[in-house]
């Protein structure tokens, strides 16, 4: 019933010249997404992936279990000295992420271009 979560990784460079690791998600982000969300993040090399950008453009459904996975990722990133940003959330999920306080620990941007410009 839930749409399988897919994740793939891209390496980009911000206009300021910083390497940015982009985690692109697709499908639902729910309790069944642990391997796709945390697994993809944990496979990143901590030493070089210092700026992590989450792409939610192709995600239609995020529930509280999915939000918990994002929070777990933010905790691990904070402990590893990484900074996490996100873009592509719908207006509704931007509101939800703001409500739960994620924006204090992960900057949200409307688009990839705007996110990269800020990094």
């Amino acid at each position, binding site marked *: 019933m*839930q749409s399988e979560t897919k994740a793939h990784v891209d390496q980009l460079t911000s206009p300021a010249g910083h390497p940015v690791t982009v985690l692109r998600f697709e499908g639902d982000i*729910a309790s*069944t997404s642990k391997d796709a969300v945390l697994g993809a993040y944990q496979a990143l090399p901590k030493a070089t992936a210092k700026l992590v950008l989450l792409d939610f453009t192709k995600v239609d*459904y995020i*529930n*509280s*279990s999915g939000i*918990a996975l994002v929070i777990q990722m933010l905790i691990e990133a904070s402990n590893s000295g990484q900074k996490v940003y996100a873009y592509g959330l719908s*207006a509704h999920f931007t509101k939800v992420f703001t409500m739960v*306080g994620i924006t204090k620990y992960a900057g949200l941007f409307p688009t990839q271009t705007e996110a990269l410009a800020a990094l």
Partner: protein
Amino acid sequence: MKQVKSTSVEVRLPSRLGYEKVAMSTAAAVAKLMGFREDRVEDLKTAVAEACINAIEHGNRLNEGLSVGVVLSAGKDSLEVKVIDDGKGMKTLPPKPDMDRKMHGEEDPRGMGMFLIQALVDEAEWVAGQNGKSSYVRLVIRLDKEAE
């Protein structure tokens, strides 16, 4: 002038995660028919999904022999949603989640569902069923909210 009679729609879900999306889609369809604005439909979808997830996980404890009832009652100015399970219901509501405490490992990263429900609809109440069964959460979202 559009007249809206009280209309009821009922859905029964298996206690299997993922099926909350059936209730979510049904609630969205009813809300759209009633004329709710798109952002309020999105609020309702998340609230209904979270209520169903709680019913599946905590009320029915993922027992697929039990079902979750979802009753949508469309009134003139509001939509009421009852999500019914076979659990004992909530005695106390959990505290509001604290992102700082979660980030510092002092609070479980999970546990956002009831907070989201309360934040996204106009009324939310949890009612424990008699004899420890048929507990429900009742949500109300008002049509006039869009005028604010």
